[in-house]
Every structure is written in C-alpha cells, then in structure tokens.
C-alpha cells in the first residue's frame, strides 16, 4: 500500500481554480485539488456543497459548464475531451444515482464498453468466453446474483444492487482514476465490506481514487491518504484520515466557523 504523498511527483489529476455553473448558478467556486497516482482522496461535505458537481464535471456532463480554471489529466487538458474520451483515457465515475437503461442488458452493455476501451488502448477484442468468465467472477466477488447481468442496466435494481453494480463496472473496465460518488450510501454493513474489499483490490500504485462520502464508516475499510472538506463550492480544509473522525464528532459547523474567521487551511 502506498503511504501518504509517496507519489506526489506523479500527478494524475490536477484541478486548478475550477468554477462550474449549472444554468446561471455557480456551484463550484474555485476548487483546487491534486491527486497523485497511488493515492486515495476522500471528499466530504454537506448536502448541496458541490461534491457531485465536481465528479460530474470531471466526467464531462454536458450541462455542467466550466467557466474558469483548468483540469489536467496526466498533464492533458481534460476539459476539452468528450465524456467517452475521458472514459477511454481511464476516468471512471461511479454515479451517486445510477441511471436505468431499459432494454440494455448489463452483460452486453459492459461488453460494448470494454470493447470501446480496449480498442482505444490498441488491444484487440478479448474472447467472449473470457469476458463472461471475468464478469461472472467479479459479480460473485461483489455478491451480485449471476442473473443480474442478464437484466436491463439498473432497471429494478435495489439501491444496494445499483451501487455494487457501479463497482462491478469499475472492476471490469479497470480504469485508472475512479471517482466514487457516495458509493457507500445505501449499502448494508455486509455490502459495505464487500464494496470496500473491491475498492481496496483496485487500489494500486498506478491507480487513484476519489471517494465522495458522508460517512467516515467506509474510511475504516478504505483508508484514505487525504480527506478534503468541500463547502459551498470550495475545498476549505484538507487533512489526513483523522479529519474525517473530527468531522464525525463535530459536524460541519465547526469548519464553517473556522473558515469564516479566516483560518482556512489548505494542503
């Protein structure tokens, strides 16, 4: 396992002074964040503070307009890439609210997606048998019913199934940077462990994870290198694992007060 800051000279994602608006409302108001290879960053913050806006903007959601700032991914301008190009370059978003795709089966969908990624990486299509085996294996690891892959994507999935299915996709598509938006919300205790195991398995020196969460509970299993607090469109404080515990004990008001009195701390 990598230790804190071990790869700080290998930045994967650099977010500089990012401003994002939806419609005429500015939601991210100058956000800075650097994620190096091998690191796990947790982002915490109150409802509506802009966490999903950050992950969606990074994934390229069309209605999220970047009005200022820049984002580099492996030194390349991420913002000028289409969402599918970002995915092919190794970015993955586990959605807070996964979308239903009626009539599109999990297995065929993932196969199509994997083919697109492999083609981009200059690899030929793997065999269907290997793919099915991989899918079955990963689904099993995540405690998902094997029939699930024959169903329409997210349609009629329980809340927990939806979240685990996001992680299944991550495991199969094997991205480089995983943005996990509240993947732990709505999971029972056992499912949380299963998902955490999958995330830990994914965690490697040549990968990075940005984990959005409300609960420090998942951080017991997936130990973050950094914890950031996002309030009102900015990261107002960053620290280590302990910051999450402190937040849990004191709530966000404490940080808000600290920020308002000018004692902003940044890393």
């Amino acid at each position, binding site marked *: 396992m990598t230790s804190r800051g071990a790869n700080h000279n290998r930045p994967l994602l650099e977010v500089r002074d990012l401003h994002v608006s939806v419609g005429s409302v500015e939601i991210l108001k100058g956000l800075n964040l650097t994620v190096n290879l091998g690191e796990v960053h947790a982002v915490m913050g109150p409802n509506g503070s802009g966490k999903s806006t950050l992950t969606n903007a990074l*994934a390229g959601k*069309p209605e999220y307009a970047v009005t200022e700032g820049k984002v580099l991914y492996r030194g390349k301008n991420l913002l000028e890439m289409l969402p*599918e190009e970002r*995915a092919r370059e190794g970015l*993955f978003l586990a959605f807070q609210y996964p*979308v239903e795709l009626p*009539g599109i089966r999990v297995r065929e*969908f993932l196969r199509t*997606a994997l083919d697109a990624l492999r083609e981009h990486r200059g690899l030929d299509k793997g065999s269907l048998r290997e793919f099915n085996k991989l899918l079955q294996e990963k689904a099993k690891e995540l405690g998902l019913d094997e029939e699930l892959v024959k169903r329409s994507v997210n349609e009629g999935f329980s809340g927990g199934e939806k979240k685990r299915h996001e992680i299944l*996709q991550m495991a199969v598509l094997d991205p480089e940077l995983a943005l996990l938006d509240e993947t732990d919300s709505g999971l029972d205790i056992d499912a949380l462990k299963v998902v955490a195991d999958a995330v830990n398995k994914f965690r490697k020196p040549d990968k990075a994870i940005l984990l959005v969460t409300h609960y420090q509970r998942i951080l017991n299993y997936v130990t973050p290198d950094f914890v950031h607090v996002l309030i009102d469109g900015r990261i107002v404080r960053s620290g280590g694992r302990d910051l999450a515990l402190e937040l849990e004990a004191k709530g966000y008001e404490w940080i808000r007060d600290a920020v308002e009195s000018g004692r902003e701390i940044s890393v």
Partner: protein
Amino acid sequence: MTQAPTKHDRYLADFEGFERDVAARGPEWLHELRQRALARFTEVGFPTARRGNERWKYTNINPIAEGTFSYPFAAGEVDGERLHTSIPWSDDWSRLVFVNGLHSAALSSVGVGADARSLAEALRADGQPAREHLGRYVTIEDDAFAALNTAFVHDGALVHVPKNGSLDRPLHLVYVTAAGAGPTVSYPRTLVVAESHSRLTLIETYAGFGEGRYFTDAVTEIVLGEGAQVQHYRVLMEEPDAFHVGITRVHLERDSTFTSTLFARGCAIGRNDLLATLDAPGSSCFLRGLYLTSGSQHVDNYVNIDHTQPHTTSRLYYKGILGGKSHAVFGGTVFVRPGAVKADARQEDKNLLLSDEAEVDSKPSLEIYADDVLCGHGATAGTVADDALFYMRTRGLDLNTAMVHLIKGFASEVLDKVEVEPLRLSLDRLTTASLPELQPGLVS
C-alpha cells in the same frame, strides 16, 4: 355525405373485369357476398370525413381515396432469391406466397400435416371451413375497407388446424406487391380457423418489391376454438410510398389464448386494426406492437378489445419510435361488457420521439360496464434521455453507439418477446437497418 362518383368509378370498372375474368368460377354464395360488399362500399365510401368519426379522427385517408389504384389483372413476378433475402425467412417454415394478391405455387412450400391452402383453390371447391367462416368476423359493415376487400375477395390463405392438431413449424403467409405498370391495389384475405385445443404459430408478412405507390387492402379473420393457442406475428414492410390498410378480427372461445406481435415499418399511410373479441370465459389475448416511422410517414394502430364474458384477460403493450416529421396514432379501446366480471385488462403505449417534428396521438381508453374488474391503461411519449446518454458515454461508448443502444433497447422490450428465433433476429436487423432513416446521421 355524398362522394364524388369518380372516386368509385375505378373500383366499379375493376369489379366488372374481376368478376368476369378472375372470379368467374366459384360458388354462388360467394358471388352474392361480393355483390353485397360492393354495394356496401359504394354506399358508405371511404371514411374521408373525420369529424365525429373516432375511428379515423387522426388519419387522413384522402391520398388513398383520391388515388387511382387498379386491380393487377396480370400476375406480377418476384425473384425467389430476392424475396428470401429481403423479408424474414427460414427454410424451416411452411410458407404460402402471394404476389399481387394471387397465390404463387412456385414460391410456396407447405409442410406435410398443415392444412394451409390458397383461398381461391379452396373456394373453387366450395370447401369448409371457408363457407362457414368467411366474412363472419370482419363483416362488410365494419367499414369501407373491409367491404372493398370483400367485394374483391378471391385469393389469400386458408389455414385450418383441426381439433387437437398442431402445425409442427411456423406458417409464413407472404403477401408481396410487385412493381407493375401504374399504381395497383391488392386485396389479401386470410382466414384462420384453429379448432379446439389446436396450436398454431402464424406469421403474416406484407412487403413491396420495386418502387412506387400501391395500396394493400388486407383482411384477416382468426377464429380460436376452445383451448386453442395461436401465436401470431404481423410484419409490415411495405415500400415507403405505399398505402396499407389492414383489419384483423380475432374471435376467441373458452380458454383460448391469442398472442400477437405487430412489427410495422412505416409507409405513406399504414393503418392496422386489430379487433379481438374475448367471447368466452378463460379466453385471453396478449398483444404487442412496435412501429417505426420516419420522414413524412403516418402509421395508425387501432386496437379494440371486447371483453364480453367474465374471467377474460387482455394485455396490450405497443411501442413506437418516431423520427422526421412522421406521425403515429395509437387508438386502443377496451370494452368490458355488462356481466364480464373479473375482466382483467391493461394497455400501454409508449413512444420515443427522435425529432421535434415527429408527432404522436396516443389515446388508449377503457369503457367499463361491469363491476369487479381490473383495468388500467397508460400512454407516454418522450425523447431520448440525456442522463442515459451521459451514463453510457462515461463507460466509453460514443454518442452514436449510445444512441443506437438506447433506441434498440427501447425496441427490444417488444422484440425480445418474439419466440420464433429466426424471426426475432430478422426483426432486430430490420430495426437496426431503419435507424439511419429514423435519426438521420446515425450509423447503425
């Protein structure tokens, strides 16, 4: 309301020649039926007046009424190889092929054990069950199109499955219009009698070969005896400029089950009536449909399910994919007659609009005159969901691929239920091939 006489002249002239040259031989009762049908047609005329006419409210059939379509006295020709590659096909199916309304023995092939014949042949012999059933379900009172078809009733398919019998493989009825000199009209007629406890899988395909405008006026009558099970598919792949009006009536006896899937590729005007009478307890029908319209096409589906008896069940699930400036209509009525307690009916029509200019009028309705029933209906029309497109793109699918998957996913909810595998694959391909027309710029 009086019709301009010229609108009928062509049909009257055709009829004279038809009776003299084509239908000269044949039983007296049939001759009489035709005469009555023609009289009925000239009396009521085409339903061009839409005001107050619920059945034709959203479909303007003037282009048909004003067209000059003539009876193709010369039999057309169709290349067997081409037929094979253009429409759903399996060498395992029995088939009866009709070109311009007339049976083509050369293109047909019926397996042993199947009583599926050319109607003209059967009528010459005055055989049962044609005499007993022909015109009994789709009557000349139904409407002008039914009357006109009956006036020209001659050839088509007669399918008879005896008591406890079953056809070991699907039966494909193929009605083809071949390019000829000038616009033609054909009058396909299908009569299916499935006696008690029999089973049948039936596919009707209507297709055009060669350019041009033509008019297909089709009538299908299907009777299910007690406990009979009929799986029915209707594939419309008329030429884009063609007109198709088809009326199907299904009569169900006790504990019989009728399952039907319509696949309709759009044409200039396409109208499909499907009228089912659940006429005995325990009878049920499951109706699905998929219609695809593009350009300035117009497709109108009119479904009428009549629950006359207690403990009858009906399900309807239709879906439409509309592009361009096309227009689709769905009119579905479920009647639950007095005393038809425990009737269970649901109908749903869902539409996917791929263009701002496409339009749908979806009017499912319920008319319930009995207590203790379970009925529901719904209609939706929506565009491709941006959220879904984004979700797919974050997995590496480009916009085109994401769009193709979403549209095909929408269609698959109907197509996946097609139990005849070669047919399902074929309809899948037809849908895929239609995508660039439905959404210009899309590569399928």
